[in-house]
């Protein structure tokens, strides 16, 4: 089976349309993950045992089971409970929820990496709890988180093909569709590989830059 360039060019518009959906899903998923992750992190720090334990269990559960199965659940089972989400929305929520559990760990690491001395200095200069968070802790905690967060963003991007299981027409789904109707698998799949690789390589370069710029949290 040899490579057919004409065919490759003819399927590019369709693949690019899928690529656009992939990017949109990644971006929206990242926003959900960033916000929900912070919520998880804060709930896990709660003094109320019930709240922190329950959050812990939920986070562990989500982290311990495959995203694919969770997506099936959200898309195909939730309607039985009266919640019917459009495919892309379900995908964004599923990915966002899954990656929020990773993000919450990054938040935790970033906050814990701020030295105890900073909390104490804030107390000794009589700042309130809110002032301490806003002016002392978060400005120091967030920059070192950026590389780890960016890493998960990239990981999430690479997992978007799972969305084809819930009928989102992203890049991989488009490629499969093309492959199925043309019986040529190699060109579309290779182009998908190339697109992922291009984005990843660019991101890795960007990541290195972020790591140099902001340092790194933990291991």
């Amino acid at each position, binding site marked *: *089976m040899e490579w057919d360039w004409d065919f490759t060019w003819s399927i590019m518009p369709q693949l690019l349309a899928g690529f656009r959906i992939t990017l949109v899903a990644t971006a929206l998923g990242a926003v959900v993950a960033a916000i929900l992750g912070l919520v998880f992190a804060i709930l896990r720090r709660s003094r109320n045992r019930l709240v922190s334990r329950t959050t812990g269990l939920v986070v*562990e*559960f989500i*982290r*311990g*089971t*495959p*995203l*694919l*199965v*969770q997506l*099936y*659940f959200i898309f*195909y*089972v939730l309607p*039985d409970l009266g919640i019917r989400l459009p495919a892309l929305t379900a995908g964004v929520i599923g990915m966002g929820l899954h990656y929020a559990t990773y993000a919450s760990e990054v938040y935790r690491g970033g906050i814990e990496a701020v030295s105890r001395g900073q909390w104490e200095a804030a107390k000794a200069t009589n700042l309130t709890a809110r002032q301490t968070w806003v002016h002392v802790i978060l400005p120091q905690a967030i920059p070192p988180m950026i590389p780890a967060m960016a890493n998960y963003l990239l990981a999430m991007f*690479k*997992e978007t*093909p799972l969305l084809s299981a819930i009928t989102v027409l992203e890049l*991989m789904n488009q490629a499969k569709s093309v492959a199925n109707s043309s019986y040529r*698998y*190699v060109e579309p*799949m290779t182009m*998908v*590989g190339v697109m*992922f*690789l291009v984005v*990843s*390589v660019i991101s*890795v370069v960007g990541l290195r830059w972020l790591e140099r710029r902001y340092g790194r949290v933990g*291991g």
Partner: protein
Amino acid sequence: MGDWSGYLTLILEGARTTVLLTVLGSAVALVVAFVAGLGRLSPVAAVRWLATAYIEFFRGTSIFVQLFWIYFVLPMTGLWAPTPMQAGVLALGLNVGAYGAEVVRGAIQAVPRDQYEACIAVNLTRFQRMRHVILPQALPLMLPTFGNNAIELLKATSVVSLISLADMTFQAQVVRSQTGSTLVPFVTILVLYFAMSSLISLAIRACERRVTRGLDGVR
């Protein structure tokens, strides 16, 4: 419809495949992680370069694409036609191994420089340094992340259905289309996945306790 115990057996057979993939994949990943991780720290530039290329390639492209290449494209070259199990184990092992390699490198570099210098001062050779001083201290740093990697690998096994391996997710799909029930098979496998990932966490924690014995107060 009906025969639930029969279909449950089907899912359990899938679970066996999932466990097998996870165990073998982790074994491959572990070996590869050490080879590539140490390779990145090699004094020989060519070895370093090779290790870096491997790591970046496998972290940069998605597991779907890697699996596809190993299973469909590799046989076309006439070199080797892996069975689905071999292809699955190889793809999972190489993919997760690339992440593990960075963990190995990070942990080794996290051993304080002081320790290398003490080794030189008592005149240990390069190999003796690694074997007796650096690795025993780096191992406890690697373990928690290795545990997370193993869980990632477990979750990634669900993608092997792409190449007709009847893993747990795949069998759940089969049961779903044969019985018409979505809820039951998916709840079953969610529980099973969570049980498996919890088992991995517990095992890793037990290992951690073993290797950190006597190291308390160091970190």
